[in-house]
């Protein structure tokens, strides 16, 4: 399979008075054609910032992509002008956000918001765009499409709005869909509907998907390939079944163990001690060392590199470094 998007050594920093926050710190990942890659991590690990960097949504002077490259279909997105980027955004790459309630314009009718990208990118006339918009609303499983097209966002429920967001995102037949926590704000029964729908669209159109989530259950259901992030870095990545069966990095192991699973009761849940480090206090070390049960001397002073540790599985951990004498 061909790489559709290839991110190499991406670094996105945010600047406050005197400090630099390295939100994305040397992240490399790729999504192949027709593949679903899930990016997992806790709040503040840089997963959303990675997505925003791809879309060119990091606004200066607050933040800036300071290094690396994002190659999409043979072109480096970071080198494109604003106008060139605009022809790709919403057309070849589209994005769904976490909060459907706040990502739609409250004063525009639903229909108009679906028609906009169709008229801009596909050059459809107003009439054609409206017909297509109604088709799309039906495609995402909403009945009374005509009526919905003429209503405002506040008249619809969260699940319906997320369907509308998906309709907008797939309207131009994107090659890559980036979904940033698309079901986090929704109820479980609605989440199941939305995930089923995303899976179905992907199958039908051979679209690639980058799904950002913190829910390991969602990952297991949707992903082909998983990337685990911690404090702005990729700590582990691998094929989904292998990663869930034998996670290598202590953080991934901890995450998997700490999630309660229905019908697998434990007396006490495993929990990773401590908390995510303050992004301002990061020094040359493994960023997970102070929460890790296997911490060695080298972990406190040197950063491990992401290396292949098993077939189709990479981890950044000194435990798998042969030169290090295990204590």
């Amino acid at each position, binding site marked *: 399979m061909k790489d559709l998007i290839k991110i190499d050594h991406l670094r996105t920093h945010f600047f406050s008075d005197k400090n630099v926050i390295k939100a994305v710190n040397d992240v490399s990942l790729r999504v192949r054609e027709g593949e679903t890659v899930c990016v997992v991590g806790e*709040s503040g690990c840089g997963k959303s910032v990675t997505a925003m960097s791809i879309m060119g949504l990091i606004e200066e002077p607050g933040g800036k992509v300071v290094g690396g490259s994002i190659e999409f279909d043979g072109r480096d997105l970071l080198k494109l002008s604003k106008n060139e980027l605009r022809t790709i955004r919403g057309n070849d790459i589209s994005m769904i956000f976490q909060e459907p309630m706040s990502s739609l314009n409250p004063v525009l009718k639903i229909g108009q918001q679906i028609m906009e990208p169709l008229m801009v990118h596909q050059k459809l006339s107003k009439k054609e765009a409206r017909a297509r918009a109604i088709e799309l609303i039906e495609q995402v499983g909403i009945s009374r499409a005509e009526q919905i097209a003429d209503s405002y966002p506040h008249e619809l429920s969260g699940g319906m709005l997320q369907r509308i967001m998906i309709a907008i995102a797939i309207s131009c037949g994107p090659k890559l869909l980036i979904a940033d926590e698309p079901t986090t704000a929704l109820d479980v029964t*609605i989440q199941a509907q939305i995930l089923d729908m995303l899976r179905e669209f992907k199958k039908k159109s051979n679209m690639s998907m980058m799904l950002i989530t913190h829910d390991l259950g969602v*990952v297991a259901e949707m992903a082909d390939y998983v990337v685990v992030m911690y404090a702005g870095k990729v700590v582990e990545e691998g094929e989904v079944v292998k990663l*869930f069966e034998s996670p290598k990095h202590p953080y991934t192991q901890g995450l998997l163990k700490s999630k309660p699973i*229905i*019908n697998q009761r434990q007396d006490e849940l495993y929990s990773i001690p401590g908390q995510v480090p303050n992004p301002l206090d990061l020094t040359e070390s493994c960023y997970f060392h102070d929460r890790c049960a296997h911490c060695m001397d080298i972990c406190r002073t040197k950063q491990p590199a992401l290396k292949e540790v098993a077939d189709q599985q990479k981890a950044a951990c000194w435990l798998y470094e042969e030169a290090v004498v295990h204590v």
Partner: protein
Amino acid sequence: MSDALLEISHLKKYFPIQKGLLNRTVGHVKAVDDISITIRPGETFGLVGESGSGKSTVGRTAIRLIEKTSGEVKFKGINIYDLPPEELRKLRPSMQLIFQDPYSSLNPRIRVGDAIGEALLDHGLVPKAEIRDRVLEVLQSCGLSSYHIDRFPHEFSGGQRQRIGIARALVLNPDLIIADEPVSALDVSIQAQIINLFRKLQETRGLAYLFISHDLSVVEHLCTRIGVMYLGSMVETATRDELFKNPLHPYTKALLSAVPVPIPKLKRERIVLKGDIPSPSNPPSGCKFHTRCPFAVARCKEEVPEFRDAGGGHFVACHLV
């Protein structure tokens, strides 16, 4: 039952819908519609349901934070809706509430120590000189350090703030804690820490919880008995083992099958519900679930199913069971 700590019977809470210049009441949102729950000392009752099912309203009416429409709530055998305000106030320390959002439930301008000690001072439970000691003690049992006492809320992470929320409730030595989605806003690794804390506190202090959550995996982990709510009504209650092994109501089955399980390639039979939860201001006739129920028959549209014992204290409201 006389040994019950909290006994909610046939509780109803209707919110009026007002419209027009004269604010005339044109209808009611039946947020809680005939709910009965009994919680014994040291027990954890889990209340599950989707947003808009009325589970938070049950929590609030159960300790009279908002007034009921009808029904009865007894706490330690005392009908709390009969009490005059001063008497109710004396009872308040023994029933406490923990909120979902640890960011908005703490006053950003009050030091953590003062926020925790405030209620002790207010209720005059402990002499002023001893308050600091009590606060320190409770901070420690919630997994915080003594130097945290003089800090402000913004200096804490989400998980730590939730610990502060728990400490505020705990300092009064309550018998009952109503926890309204206490771990929903937290990350997985922090969520596990807080769940363990809830458990530990229950073991050491014999607390009873009314644990409100939409996350069935968390509820299974903590609760001894579970009630499932849909549009203001209870559709099923059973002990934890019974509910998870043998769910009877189609809604419970659908909820259970909708939770994503972190095991890839696991083939499960999933009941995917169609559509959204209907508006509680205009609930469907008969069984409120019939519009989304994959097994609905004609009878469900007309007749309200009785909430009855299907054997061994497993209550369910469904015509088909």
